[in-house]
Structures are given as structure tokens and as C-alpha cells.
């Protein structure tokens, strides 16, 4: 008996980290399954709707109602599984600080609560008009939902960029300190070269900071009145983030040049 317990403990110890690591991966797989299910149900709904609109018979109306209810339920479930995936991503994020993580998780929690209430309404649907009314409830809320989703995605990526910048600045400071400590090892000409590299590296960081300020400003205005404006704003943020990443990439190559140059005194 104790041997069995020992084996169970070993298995738990070995598999527990894997289970924790895979939480966002499994959430993503679940989301993909829900997406496939939604696509199938949506096709069935479209067929039933077109038959109802064409024949207007009681049978086709009943079928259309059933398929509509099914589609609405799966649509809501799809959005919930996607939000669950985002929530797992936030949980796994090592670069995001606790305050921001709590902020984005609250946004997601509010949206999940809305979707739960939305799904609860589906039991009371008795006609196509009822189904239309319930669907319009989600349509009118969808701008806010999409805004919360995009804000969370931007938050995740922005945290990654900020974490990379923190490392970048730390390495820059260390390089500067090493040069200052060994200043006597270099000729005056060499020191001027090293100082120019340091200036270039600092400039790249300043440009990165400018971009991150733009991203922060744009992300706060993501709550817009229309979906198209939210999407356009999100695209602008993605562009700014790519540029910010490019500045870091250039800066780190300058740091590599600097350290290679630091080896020689003249």
C-alpha cells in the first residue's frame, strides 16, 4: 500500500507542472472545438432560416426556431470559451504586473457574467421574435465586449514589450558601469567611440519610450462607439508595437557591437 502511494505521489509530482503549463493550451484547444461546433450549427441555422423564409410553413418555422436557439447558445459558449482562453493567458503572463492583471481579469469577468445572463435568457425563447430580441441584446453589447477583448490583447503584448525593455535598460546600465570602471584601460579615441555607442543605445530606448507612450494613449481610447473604429485603433496599436519592438531590436544589436568593441583598448 505505501508503495502504491509513493508511485501516485511521483506521478502527481511529475505531471502537475505539465498540467499547470498547459492550462492556456488546453483552453485554446477547447476554444477551437467550440469554434468548429459553432460553424456547423451556424450552417444548419442558415439552411433552416432560408427554408423558413422561402416556404413559411409551420414545420420550417419550428425548425428555424430550434436551430436559432441552438446557434445562439453555441455563439455565447464560443465567446465564453474565448474569454476563458484570454483569462488563462493572463494567468500565465510573467511579464504583466499584478495590478494590470487584476484590471484585465475584471474586464473579462464582467463579460463572462454578461454572457451567462445572456445564455440564461435563451430558455424563455418561444418564438423567432423572442430569439431576435435576445440576439439584439448581444449585438448592442458587442462593441463593449470587443473593446474589452482588444484591450486585454494589447495589455498582454504591451507587458511583454515592457519586460523586454526592462532587461534592455538593465544591460545598458551594466555596460555603462563596466566602461566607467575600466576607463583607464582605453585610449581617449576608443573612449569617444564607446561613448558614441552608448549614446546611440540610449537614443533607441528614447524612441521606444515614445512609441509605448503612443500605445498607452491609444489603448485608453479603445472604447469607441463603433466596431470599425475599435478595429482601426487596434491596427494602429499593433503597428506602433511593431515599431517599438524594432527599436529594441536595433538597440540590442548596438549593445552587441558595444560589447565587442569593449574587448580592445584601442
Amino acid at each position: 500500500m505505501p508503495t502504491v502511494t509513493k508511485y501516485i505521489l511521483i506521478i502527481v509530482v511529475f505531471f502537475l507542472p505539465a498540467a499547470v503549463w498547459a492550462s492556456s493550451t488546453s483552453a485554446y484547444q477547447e476554444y477551437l472545438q467550440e469554434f468548429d461546433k459553432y460553424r456547423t450549427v451556424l450552417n444548419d441555422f442558415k439552411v433552416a432560416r432560408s427554408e423558413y423564409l422561402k416556404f413559411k410553413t409551420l414545420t420550417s418555422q419550428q425548425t428555424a426556431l430550434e436551430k436559432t436557439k441552438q446557434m445562439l447558445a453555441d455563439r455565447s459558449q464560443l465567446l465564453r470559451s474565448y474569454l476563458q482562453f484570454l483569462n488563462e493567458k493572463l494567468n500565465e503572463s510573467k511579464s504583466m504586473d499584478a495590478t494590470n492583471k487584476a484590471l484585465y481579469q475584471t474586464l473579462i469577468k464582467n463579460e463572462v457574467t454578461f454572457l451567462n445572463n445572456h445564455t440564461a435568457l435563451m430558455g424563455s425563447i418561444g418564438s423567432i421574435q423572442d430569439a431576435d430580441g435576445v440576439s439584439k441584446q448581444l449585438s448592442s453589447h458587442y462593441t463593449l465586449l470587443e473593446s474589452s477583448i482588444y484591450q486585454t490583447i494589447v495589455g498582454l503584448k504591451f507587458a511583454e514589450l515592457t519586460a523586454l525593455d526592462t532587461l534592455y535598460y538593465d544591460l545598458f546600465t551594466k555596460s555603462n558601469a563596466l566602461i566607467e570602471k575600466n576607463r583607464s584601460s582605453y585610449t581617449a579615441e576608443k573612449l569617444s567611440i564607446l561613448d558614441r555607442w552608448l549614446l546611440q543605445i540610449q537614443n533607441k530606448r528614447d524612441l521606444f519610450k515614445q512609441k509605448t507612450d503612443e500605445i498607452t494613449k491609444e489603448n485608453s481610447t479603445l472604447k469607441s462607439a463603433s466596431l470599425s473604429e475599435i478595429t482601426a485603433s487596434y491596427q494602429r496599436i499593433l503597428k506602433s508595437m511593431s515599431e517599438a519592438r524594432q527599436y529594441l531590436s536595433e538597440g540590442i544589436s548596438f549593445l552587441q557591437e558595444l560589447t565587442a568593441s569593449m574587448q580592445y583598448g584601442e
Partner: protein
Amino acid sequence: MENNMDQTIAEMPHEVPVQQPIVQKPQKKGFDLRYLFLVLIIIGISGGLFAATRKPAPIPIPTPTDTPTPSPKSKSLVPLATQSAYLSLTQSIASLSSQIQQMQVSDTTLSPPTIELPLGFPNE
């Protein structure tokens, strides 16, 4: 007096144009171009024969010799280059560089699903 002058003018003989005699140059007998062509052919053939029979001049074979090669100027390493602080710094920079390269700004897995919102039933 005026009448006298008229008379002298009238008495002056008019200049009659003299026709130049046509001198016929003796016709030279033209050089026959066929001779020139023949001469050129002969020169060409003889030149060709001369070139064919001539022994080729020996081409000097270059003998390989050692040439001075530029040697890189040896730079002296500063003591810092071998210190652990410097080595650790270079490793950290290489690691961060790969992290930056791997970072994906636009992550497609995070894209929200596209759903159909209006049901498409006419208002009854």
C-alpha cells in the same frame, strides 16, 4: 567742250570678249585596279605563310614565389575582456537578442472569433 568729250568716248574702242582656247589634256591611261587586288592577295598569302611557318615565341612560365602577406595587427585585449562580469554581460545580451527576435507582436491565436450577429429574419 562737252561735244569733244562725247567724241573721245565714242572713238574709244569697245572691249571685245576673247574666247579662251580649249586645251585638251592628254588622256592618261588609268591604273588597273585588278593589279592592286592581285598584289593585296599575294601580300596576304605571303603574310599568312610567314605567320604559319614562324616559330611561336616561348611564353615565360611564371615561377611561384613567396609574396609578403599582410598579417592582422594584433590588438591587445583589455583585462575586462576575460572577466566574468563581461562574459556574463555578453551572454545576457545574446539571450535578450533572441527573446526580442522571437517576440510576436501580432499573435494570431489571440484574435477574437468572428461571429454573426444579426439573425437575418424580417421584422414581422
